[in-house]
């Protein structure tokens, strides 16, 4: 038998009908994650066609995108400030009740960002196909699942049939050798990878991150890496499941139990790409040579090592437009630039290890006068843990604003925004124009770099504070 990639194994195990020249494959979906923003039109379609959700037991809903993070609004002592967001929240409550889908609702201790709660609850498992109406669904690939974002029409398709029509993508091996140096994180690694292959370098591919630097990562770090696969244009990124994966999943509420667990682990061990499996493309990265990274432009590929200088334009009209938007010039150094806002959170860096990293810097320190720092846990469970571990006290003592979970300042649609012209060091995933608010200027970085910059009020190297 020919050597197969992990992607090939997961794909072929879910082909209900194989693709032909004339028709795409009918691909079975094991887990459908849903939220308030990309489902209303899909539920309307079901209603208009008189259809039901075929497998509510394979569907899970949460509130995150337009959901406020202020405690009084989440717990109902104050109205949700944005009327349209309040309407979306109510609609998801009504729609999930009508169609029999489990919802982690506003006051549910299991609520959180959709890509944080799937793994946290053990709903995300190796070998699964997982979709969600959100491009950062690639996060779940950290478990060796084939996970990708879809649009609302496809959300409707999965509701009605538990399947999607899909053409088989190509495979791309991202070989990461060496080991990340101290103070250099999974976020820096994925930013460096995107800088190397470009924001459309992964288009049409499923990435597989491989090599010693990847297997050395914790589960949460692996999620950070897979999360940003889409920022390289790839719909999905995968990492082979191993002991780290199994240890993470053991005992989670939705993980298999007893004999089912043993059977599952046996099957999961067989998922890794076979030795000698061929990929359609490949790139090699040496983790040992990496430094903390920061973006300087308006897409995640416009990124450089923290100590570097903004490059010269090599004849790209958009480059000048991006720098004009950011208020930067070629040749300038990023270190030492003043900043206004720091955001720690999102599906990229809103997990407990990310908050522990921020706390390591903030412990016994204060954020600089004039800097606003927002720390938003990725889920209510992350919030509970952070409070139990004393992290929240460190954040509050440092002068940061500690909130309820949600997508928050990653995208300006829930009341948490960055003002026009302001510079925000953000642990999120997109530095697009206006992403965090009209005219906002986003600098993507790791939780370490974000926290260090909050302390000094300038872009700072966290390695000097660790």
């Amino acid at each position, binding site marked *: 038998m020919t050597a197969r990639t992990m992607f090939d194994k997961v794909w072929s195990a879910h082909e209900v009908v194989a693709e032909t*020249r004339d028709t*795409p494959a*009918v691909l079975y979906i094991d887990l459908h994650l849903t939220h308030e923003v990309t489902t209303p039109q899909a539920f309307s379609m079901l209603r208009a066609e008189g259809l039901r959700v075929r497998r509510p037991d394979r569907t899970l809903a949460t509130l995150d995108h337009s959901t406020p993070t202020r405690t009084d609004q989440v717990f109902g002592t104050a109205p949700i400030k944005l009327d349209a967001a309040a309407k979306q929240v109510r609609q998801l409550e009504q729609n999930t009740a009508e169609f029999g889908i489990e919802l982690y609702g506003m006051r549910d201790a299991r609520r959180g960002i959709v890509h944080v709660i799937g793994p946290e609850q053990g709903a995300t498992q190796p070998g699964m196909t997982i979709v969600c109406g959100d491009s950062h669904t690639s996060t779940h690939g950290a478990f060796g699942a084939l996970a990708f974002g879809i*649009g609302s029409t496809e959300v409707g398709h999965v509701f009605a049939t538990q399947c999607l029509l899909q053409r088989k993508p190509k495979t791309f091996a991202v070989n990461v050798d060496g080991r990340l140096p101290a103070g250099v994180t999974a976020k820096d690694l994925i930013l460096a990878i995107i800088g190397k292959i470009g924001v459309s370098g992964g288009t049409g591919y499923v990435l597989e991150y491989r090599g010693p630097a990847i297997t050395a990562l914790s589960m949460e770090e692996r999620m950070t890496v897979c999360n940003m696969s889409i920022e390289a244009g790839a719909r999905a990124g995968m990492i082979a499941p191993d002991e780290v994966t199994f240890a993470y999943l053991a005992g989670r509420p939705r993980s298999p139990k007893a004999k089912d667990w043993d059977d599952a682990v046996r099957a999961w061990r067989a998922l890794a790409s076979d030795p000698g499996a061929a990929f359609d493309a490949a790139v090699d990265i040496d983790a040992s040579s990496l430094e903390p990274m920061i973006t300087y432009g308006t897409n995640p590929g416009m990124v450089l090592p923290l100590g570097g200088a903004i490059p010269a334009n090599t004849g790209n009209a958009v480059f000048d437009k991006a720098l004009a938007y950011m208020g930067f010039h070629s040749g300038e150094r990023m270190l030492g630039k003043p900043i206004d806002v720091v955001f720690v959170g999102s599906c990229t860096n809103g997990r407990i290890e990310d908050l522990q990293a921020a706390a390591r810097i903030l412990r016994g320190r204060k954020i600089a006068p004039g800097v606003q720092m927002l720390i938003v846990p990725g889920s209510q469970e992350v919030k509970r843990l952070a409070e139990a571990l004393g992290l929240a006290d460190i954040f509050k003592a440092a002068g940061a604003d500690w909130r309820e979970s949600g997508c928050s300042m990653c995208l300006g649609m829930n009341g948490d925004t960055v003002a026009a012209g302001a510079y925000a060091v953000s642990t999120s995933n997109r530095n697009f124009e206006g992403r965090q608010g009209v005219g906002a200027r986003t600098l993507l970085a790791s939780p370490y770099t974000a926290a260090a910059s909050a302390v000094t009020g300038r872009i700072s190297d966290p390695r000097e504070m660790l």
Partner: protein
Amino acid sequence: MEPIRQIHSQTVVMPSTNIDTDQIIPARFLTTTTKAGLGKSLFADWRYREDGAPKPEFVLNQPAAAGSRILVAGHNFGCGSSREHAPWALLDYGFRAVISTAIADIFGNNALKNGLLPVVVDAPTHRWLLDHPGAEVTIDLESARLSLPNGTVATFAIEAFARHCLMSGLDELGFLRSKLPEIAAYEAAHRK
């Protein structure tokens, strides 16, 4: 959906590369619960000043853009978020096709499901289109060809089944639902 065979129109050119879906429609407009009326928010932050007045220098606010159904955009159009609001907004505004040298995967899929044609052409054809804003071009879906007024005819790749659905005005869900017996058999065989 209306069947699509040919699109004939003058073009509007937005040469920027990597136009992401946050530019096509910013997240603050995603709190809607319908598909209707998103055209007015298309490219909102490039199109309007803070007070809501149109920015005269933006291409869609120029008289020459009126009535155009084909957008020519820089490399990697539609990257970023999976929001289907992006093709909904482009369609509601009046566009029926987007031409580029690369179109992001999720955006391209979403576009096809709504009758917005993602047309990926070779670099020389793209260069010519960028250099000739307002050119009258024809996209023929059956032959998958783009005809330029200078006589050049370029072919483009389009997924066979999506093309079939677009040309006959079929909804892909109908096909998927016709496979329900196979889906049930798969679930039984795989204990799902």
